[in-house]
């Protein structure tokens, strides 16, 4: 007697199907690996999709040089353990110009180090398809995006001219220079991600779990002082508080939440009673309504 598929079974099958479709139809795909929980799930699914072979594409991390130190450690440890081909790209022009979240502002920093850095890396290696871990439940403009999302030769997304996407029949054709961003987790929700991490026992960065960490209150957010580059403003004090992160990015732009959730079950239970969305901890979304769409049109993931 064969069992009916569960909700997670269906989501998993859809993602695996998408991975294989790209491997079968693109010349030079890459998976964007951003070290967060969604990337961890994506990596896990990529491995399942091609087992017993290894995923037939490299993994790319666009390092802004401002990620949490624990993220970089985790990244290197996972790459070593799984033996996958990890490419790390840093926008050296941005480093040279000393672009950073404090002096340049979150918008400029994100644009130069992340969006431009990503475009540089895609051009450098000539990737024609790039997997990302974005989900439609994260944000309004993401809710509008196709699973196979076309980008012109300048890496720009034109939300008004998206290709129709019928059934599971994906149009994977691109002209030279053009590319497709592919989102296997499009139909997953935040709860699905946690539930899958729990079910499959997927390793994630410890920053997601509550621990006493040195934080500073700034602009209504709790920013963890991960290294000496963060200068204190007058009146600011570093306190050790019991905190964790719902999403991970550049440490100066990622707000911690006060929490005592130390296990996956406690995280889920906390999430079920949460009154704010996970992106609330992201400074870059706050600038103005529609800011995510703008970034995506410029080539942000």
């Amino acid at each position: 007697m064969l069992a009916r598929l569960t909700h997670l079974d269906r989501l998993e099958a859809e993602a695996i199907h998408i991975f294989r479709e790209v491997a079968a139809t693109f010349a030079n795909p890459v998976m964007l690996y951003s070290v967060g929980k969604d990337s961890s799930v994506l990596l896990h699914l990529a491995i399942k999709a091609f087992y017993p072979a290894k995923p037939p594409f490299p993994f790319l991390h666009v390092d802004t040089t401002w990620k949490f130190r624990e993220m970089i450690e985790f990244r290197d440890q996972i790459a070593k353990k799984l033996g996958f081909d990890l490419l790390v790209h840093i926008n050296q022009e941005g480093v040279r110009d000393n672009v950073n979240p404090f002096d340049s502002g979150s918008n400029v920093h994100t644009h130069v180090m992340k969006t431009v850095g990503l475009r540089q890396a895609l051009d450098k290696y000539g990737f024609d398809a790039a997997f990302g871990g974005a989900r439609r439940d994260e944000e309004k403009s993401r809710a509008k995006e196709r699973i196979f999302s076309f980008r012109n030769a300048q890496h720009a997304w034109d939300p008004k001219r998206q290709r129709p996407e019928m059934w599971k029949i994906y149009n994977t054709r691109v002209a030279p220079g053009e590319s497709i961003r592919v989102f296997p987790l499009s139909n997953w929700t935040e709860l699905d991600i946690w539930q899958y991490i729990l079910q499959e026992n997927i390793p994630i960065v410890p920053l997601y779990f509550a621990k006493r960490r040195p934080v500073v209150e700034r602009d209504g957010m709790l920013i963890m002082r991960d290294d000496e580059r963060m200068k204190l403003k007058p009146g600011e004090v570093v306190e050790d508080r019991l905190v964790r992160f719902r999403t991970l990015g550049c440490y100066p732009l990622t707000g911690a939440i006060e929490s005592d959730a130390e296990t996956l079950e406690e995280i889920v239970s906390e999430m079920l009673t949460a009154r704010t969305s996970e992106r609330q901890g992201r400074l870059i979304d706050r600038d103005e309504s529609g800011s995510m769409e703008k970034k995506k049109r410029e080539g942000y993931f």
Partner: protein
Amino acid sequence: MKADPVQAAESVREYLESQNRKSLLRFLTCGSVDDGKSTLIGRLLSDTRQIFEDQLSALERDSRKHGTTGDEVDFALLVDGLEAEREQGITIDVAYRFFSTAKRKFIVADTPGHEQYTRNMATGASTADLAIVLVDARQGVVAQTRRHSIIASLLGIRHVIVAINKIDLVGFDQQIFDRIASEYREFAKDLHFSSIMPIPISARYGDNVTTRSANSGWYSGPTLLDHLETVAVDEISIDAPFRFPVQYVNRPNLDFRGFAGTIASGSVLVGDEVVVAKSGKSARVKRIVAQGGDLDGAVSGQAITLVLDEEVEASRGNMLVAPTARPQVADQFAANIVWFDENGLKPGRSYILRTETDQVGATVTDLKYRININNFAHEAAKSLAMNEVGICNISAQAPIAFDTFAENRTTGAFILIDRMSNATVGAGMILHGLRRADNIHWQSLDIGKHERAQAKNQKPAVFWFTGLSGSGKSTIANLLEKKLHASGHHTYILDGDNVRHGLNRDLGFTDADRVENIRRVAEVARLMTDAGLVVLVSFISPFRAERQMARELMEKGEFIEVFVDTPFEECVKRDPKGLYARALSGSLKNFTGVDSPYEAPEDPEIHLETLGKSTEELVEILENWLHERDIEQEQYDDGGGI
């Protein structure tokens, strides 16, 4: 204070398990502009408590800026995620939203009402099981209600909720509700819906959305959410015949060869016999490989990797199927087509047809009729414009394996892609295979192309001269033929003007006729190469897609595209037949370069820039090119001449 951690963890796991067992309903909201689709979804999300505080405060901010509901929160702004949408107060593209209740999980596609964005509505409908068709109680059933209902039906949706919205604005009048409901039922009686549920609602105020309204005491049916939670979802039956489109062949080393794909229907167990659809070869399933341990069996919807007990040939695009209930394999079939592109469907033009995993060149050989969305009348048509629906016969360059769409939504569907722009221009639902191809078998003859060409001591070729009228195509082709003839070649010239007087005299100069014109000439050229001739085709042939189609008809290396590149101004000056004068004065319509486009070749074998060169010099370029090619080819074979 934390609760007992062990007990808390246990209850979280129980909760998650119950979530995991819930069924999923995918539905869409559709209907005309301003019928309140986005508002309804905003209301559903809000009433089922799926909106976070930070999202609510952003919504309040946006409502003040862009809202259309005065001081109240405009729920439509929750789903209209694009800036252009919020500014214009309309929905352009489909948005996907997720929510769940105690009984079920939902993915809802909020689709645009404007006719020009119908393709985005179709995108949302293609993966949905149920459609909520919104109708404004003040307007009743309008054209867009019908168009969306027809598309939903064609795309295989079997359940419809007719949400008669803004019922508050007609004073909760039961007669209005009854009239619209029966009008819809009458209209939809031929659409094969298995359930139609009319519900009076006010999306803005929430009447009968998630809670029963006190304002419509006469209504005794379920609320919208009640119905969504209880309607029976037609899951792909695991009792249907086994269909496994091969998506990817996993071959990490010589010892492992796995067929990866997603089961489209049915189920499979280790030991089962399966058949390769296109070849009829059979084998048994030896393993179902998965990380963490092989599986004993798998069901429809599962993405798996199969290993067979024998080496059978099956690459991407083929299908492994149940031996006793096989799909059809044919290169000709009839299908419903929904057209998406600004450039209309042109019978005779070659498109790329894609099924879930197969890809093949295909043309619409016969547009049987267009469906009038107001009265279902079948209308004769020469092409399908954007958002139109029609029934077509399709001819593919190679056979594909398929079921009818009515039998299987996965193996009976395809999309059409434009060869040049790579745009997805249409979607198709297969009605039935056409048996013609089976009856007209290719005659297997003892004397073949090779023998005929040998007798002439030459290699067949097609010189395809393309360029504007008056660019010099025919003059160059004529001189080249003389020279080839003089050197002992067997040649023939197909000239645009000459062919139009005979074979193609029934064709005019519309885009559709131009496409057919080129198709016929290309087929004739192919027969002539089969006869062993060197063919010189001298046709304006303005569209890249048709030249590409002609190229694909010939054997590799046989098609030589010659771009006769003369500037437009020069052609106008020469005007050997006085045609430009007439076209520019407006008395001659659809003239290439004037009011009909010419798409220059991007990568022709030979690019002749004619300005300042005599015909002799140009033909010399062609001869030199041929000479160099022959030297190259002599290293591979000893064919004579061209």
